[in-house]
């Protein structure tokens, strides 16, 4: 028999995740699993990017592993990771009490609102690669940014109608805060103590070291350049292949095309981390991904999910 595990958010990383999932499930969200592709942020998940478009109501929450190749620190920095978890909530249209719901979720994970100073500090969100922007805040708890709160105004170049509210919790940071830990690798992952205790470092330290090496030193740039072009091409091909033949028909392949857009974006991030993209080229790569995102958004709006008749 294993020793008792404590799944309170204050004692385990997974307890924090489970609590957030339960909280948002109770609000009527579908609890999804991470998207099965490499993305830079939870926003890239089609459950946010694509579902934010079109008139249909949508409520979802999920954990999304996020990859930021440039943020790798070979496991040596207590706060920075090239792979980390975001907890993403999207509510379309945003309910009028979204701020209160957010605060209730903090309470649920053990942040006592009588004890801690929660603040909404201006932070307008923009994703140049997704052609998306919104207004909102970074949410501070005692001076630490623990979440992003955004009212999407535009995604993939299209006005959001209605507007969706997006919450992104930085899980590691939040967990460090509630567990009172200074180093991310010291986080208790599973809530067990003694021999059974598994830390964040047990799970991810080696990966951080290996991927930092990969991202900065080894990633095969010839292959990556090729993959970028291939993904870009494939995205266009699938969009063309699924395109409706007439005004009354729907698009038939918006999501597979969008996968290629995600792929191109991640490949670009890797190339950027390898330092093989010059400042001027950088802008043009971002624009190329944005064009894909826009085309995919346009295609999505012609599907049932996008609200097409």
């Amino acid at each position, binding site marked *: 028999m294993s020793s008792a595990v404590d799944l309170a958010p204050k004692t385990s990383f997974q307890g924090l995740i489970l609590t957030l999932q339960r909280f948002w499930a109770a609000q009527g969200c579908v609890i999804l699993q991470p998207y099965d592709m490499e993305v830079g942020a939870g926003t890239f998940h089609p459950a946010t990017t694509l579902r934010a478009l079109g*008139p249909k109501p949508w409520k979802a929450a999920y954990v999304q592993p996020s990859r930021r190749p440039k943020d790798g620190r070979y496991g040596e*920095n*207590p*706060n920075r990771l090239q792979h980390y978890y975001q907890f993403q909530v999207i509510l379309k*249209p*945003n*309910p*009028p009490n979204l*701020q209160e719901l957010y605060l209730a979720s903090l309470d649920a994970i053990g942040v*006592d*609102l*009588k*004890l*801690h*100073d*929660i*603040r*909404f*500090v*201006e932070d*307008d969100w923009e994703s140049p690669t997704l052609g998306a922007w*919104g*207004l*909102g*805040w970074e949410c501070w*708890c*005692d*001076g*630490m940014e623990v979440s992003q709160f955004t*009212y999407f*105004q535009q995604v993939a170049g299209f006005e*959001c*109608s*209605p*507007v969706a*509210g997006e919450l992104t919790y930085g899980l590691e940071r939040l967990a460090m*805060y509630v567990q009172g830990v*200074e180093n991310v690798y010291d986080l208790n992952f599973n809530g067990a103590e003694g021999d059974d205790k598994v830390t964040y470092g047990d799970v991810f330290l080696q990966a951080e070291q290996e991927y930092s090496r990969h991202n900065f030193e080894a990633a095969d740039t010839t292959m990556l350049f090729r993959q970028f072009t291939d993904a870009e091409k494939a995205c266009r091909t699938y969009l063309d292949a699924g395109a409706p033949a007439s005004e009354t028909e729907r698009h038939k392949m918006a999501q597979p095309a969008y996968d290629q857009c995600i792929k191109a974006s991640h490949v670009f991030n890797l190339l950027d981390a390898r330092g093989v993209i*010059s*400042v*001027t080229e950088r802008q043009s790569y971002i624009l190329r991904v944005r064009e894909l995102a826009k085309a995919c958004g346009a295609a999505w709006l012609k599907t049932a999910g996008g609200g097409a008749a």
Partner: protein
Amino acid sequence: MPDLLLELRSEEIPARMQRRAAEDLRKLVTDALVERGFLYEGAKAFATPRRLALHVAGLPARGQDVREERKGPRVGAPDGAVQGFLKSAGLASLDQATIVTDPKKGEFYVAVIERPGRSTLDVLAEILPAIIKSFPWPKSMRWGKASAQPGALRWVRPLQSIVATFGPETETPDLVPFAVDGIVAGTTTYGHRFLAPEAIEVRRFDDYVPALERAKVVLDADRRKDIILHDARDLAFARGLELVEDDGLLEEVAGLVEWPVVLMGSFDAAFLDIPAEAIRATIRANQKCFVLREPGAECLAPAFVLVSNLIASDGGLAITAGNERVVRARLSDAKFFWETDKAIKLQDRLPKLDSIVFHEKLGTQGERVQRIAALARELAPLVGADPDLAERAARLAKADLVTEMVGEFPELQGLMGRKYATLEGEHPSVAAAIEEHYKPVGPSDRVPTDPVSVAVALADKLDTLVGFWAIDEKPTGSKDPYALRRAALGVIRLILDEEARLRLMPIIVGRMALVQAVTKVDGHDAEVAETSPGLQSDKVKQDVRKGVSSDLLAFFADRLKVYLRDQGARHDLIDAVFALPGQDDLLMVVRRVEALGKFLETDDGRNLLAGYKRAANILRIEEKKDGRSYEAAPDASLAARGEPEERALSDALASARQAASTAVEREDFAGAMQALSSLRAPVDAFFEKVTVNAEDPALRENRLALLNALRAATREVADFSRIEG
């Protein structure tokens, strides 16, 4: 007199927008009232993170009644005229009109139309929703279900509720009846989000403010600032420390809280190895906290002041501990940057500048550094700097842009460069110039005095100006994205403060050629090439360069005028000096303007100016009449044949002009003016005794030539035609 209370409660308004928004609200509402004839006694607007509020005091309950008498047709006029009158005056029959008797015109109808003034409440119900719908937020958004509708309300963040009441002090005020996008104006608001979550009923401003205060909201931003500042000073004092005051930060934090609670935290003294400016930058930018110092000392204390929005049940222990954790993490980052940066010499960072684009048409930072270094070397002797040091400083001046620290805190550019250069053992003047070459940043910023700093600061700004002029990105109207006006003012202040002697034109023309060599797209040359492909000769290029350079010099003249006018100089005198050819030595221009100003304050100066004006007038009239100009030198022998005063003037002119010219060459402008002042008596005597339009055409012509010689003599010092008065 009744008052208006308006509150627009929303989700958190960005701190930087609050003050402006409150002011906009006040102005929009009061302007709309005044426009409709409603005067008020006073108006004040307020902002907190969660609300804009407006109090307009002393409004009338209703507008003025309007009484109008409209004259109609005479009694017994044809029916058509009567009907037309009834219709236009809005009367049902002639019974409603009065009959007036006039001795001349007999009896006629008059309609008395009385329009009662509109009730203020109605007018407010009309004005307020319109203002809310078109409120000028710098950035606004849609939200919620309503956002799917076209024309949905936009606000800075979701608008939650509206309070709008109107009425006198003594009675229960009326609700202003309106709704915007489904939000109905009412009398309910809420206090502090955490400390007083219950609803509050408000009636008027006088009970609104104390009700909010009880609900832990300080409505007035200036009061919140005051509380923060005093509490912060007290806390610091109690620990034997001194607050490093920071107005910008104070304004910002006052916009982040409704109920300020000031707390103090500390950090490990080991972090004090990091440069104080970097500590302050990170604590300020990332944590919005104030730093502290030992009293009377420059060095920081290992403590900070934070402003929270909560009276916490544990007295703020958890909040302080949380902030300390974040500050610790931030300072660890800063320390890491500082240590990492020190491991690479500035010199070794230079190649990296070659891959940083300064401006897409102006090449890389690396190319720019090359140009600035060359120019700094060239300018060094003119400002008394060692050319080697100036060049060295210019080469290293931008290297800190690729350090971690400046990457993280761009506002530390220059300063970090200086620190690293000092540690690397660079010459103190080189290290100082790395920091100071950005100076002066504004009209009140300090002008560097070390000659090396002056040389690099001038080179940096001149290169920027020439570059943007070469690609035709000049400031227009209120748009000056590259701060070129500031750069030009910087050059002016550097030159004048340092009393540096330099001719701008050759420098500008020379730089223009260098910049054009790297510009990716040269607008001017491209144009020439398009219209006449065969003509892009060196000559044409040179002409284009000259044209653009003259334009830039004119910009300097313009900025100098603004600068001197602010110092109290007469703009017409500056014009009078700039109207002379070749005025590109700013120090000499200013000296000349000063001398001219003093001269014109003397009797001699004033009289000479009057004499000049008289001569110029006569010449203008006669030259126009004769269709020719009188530019030939006067003939001394002819003058000798005429009146003695004529002879005297002729002699005086010749010697005064010569003396003025020599003095100008010596840069003795006061001397030149002195020389001209000797003309006063002969000029006065000439006009008194001599008739210019003599019978003898030869004499007349010579007298006109004399007047022209006076005009020419004054041009030795300035173009008197530009001087007013």
